[in-house]
């Protein structure tokens, strides 16, 4: 299963719920306002660093660029993918759970 999160971690609990429920070892993709979670030096950085060890965490590049987040500001261990990569993840990991 692929878990996808599009809400800001500073405003909503979607990412927290996802991390609480999703079985370890699964794949998580951050997109739209969800990409803010992938940044270094924020109040959720430690949470995401830990998540990147327990899960495969991905972040959508076009949404990072739109929000002015440079690739070197993305937490180590989180992989940046483009739209093609998004499609590949869906194919690879099967059904999508969307944490709206």
């Amino acid at each position, binding site marked *: 299963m692929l878990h996808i999160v599009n809400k800001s971690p500073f405003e909503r609990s979607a990412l927290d719920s996802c991390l609480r429920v999703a079985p370890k070892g699964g794949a998580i993709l951050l997109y739209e306002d969800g990409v803010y979670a992938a940044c270094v030096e924020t*109040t959720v950085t430690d949470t995401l660093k830990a998540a990147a060890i327990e899960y495969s965490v991905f972040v959508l590049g076009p949404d990072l660029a*739109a*929000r002015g987040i440079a690739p070197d*500001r993305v937490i180590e261990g989180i992989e940046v993918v483009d739209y093609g990569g998004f499609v590949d993840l869906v194919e690879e990991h099967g059904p999508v759970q969307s944490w709206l």
Partner: protein
Amino acid sequence: MNELEPDYDTEGVVKKFMFVNRKAPYGTIYALEILETVLISAAFDQDVSVVFMDDGVFQIKKGQDTKAINVKNFSPTYRALEGYDVEKLFVERESMEARGLAVDDFVVPVEVLSAEELGGLMDQQDVIITG
């Protein structure tokens, strides 16, 4: 409005307007709607201040490039506010720091306020519009 554009002489009815931006720029329409309202208010010579707090601080982050998501990048428009005589731009410190941002990260010069200072400023307003 038809024919001639009006002279925006509204002297005597100047109110203190505060716009409080609390949302990230592209996930929802709030940021753009507030920005348009700010521009319209300013054209009518109101006393406008603009606050960025919570995820609203992301609106003025430098380096936004929306080509790949195919929506309009409106972050350059914040730099036009000065020409509209909107020069009172504030960022709440806690929101900024929680998101790993500093004053150098913003496209416009801002004054950083504590939550307490911001609360005091809110108390002085005639109208507060939040989005």
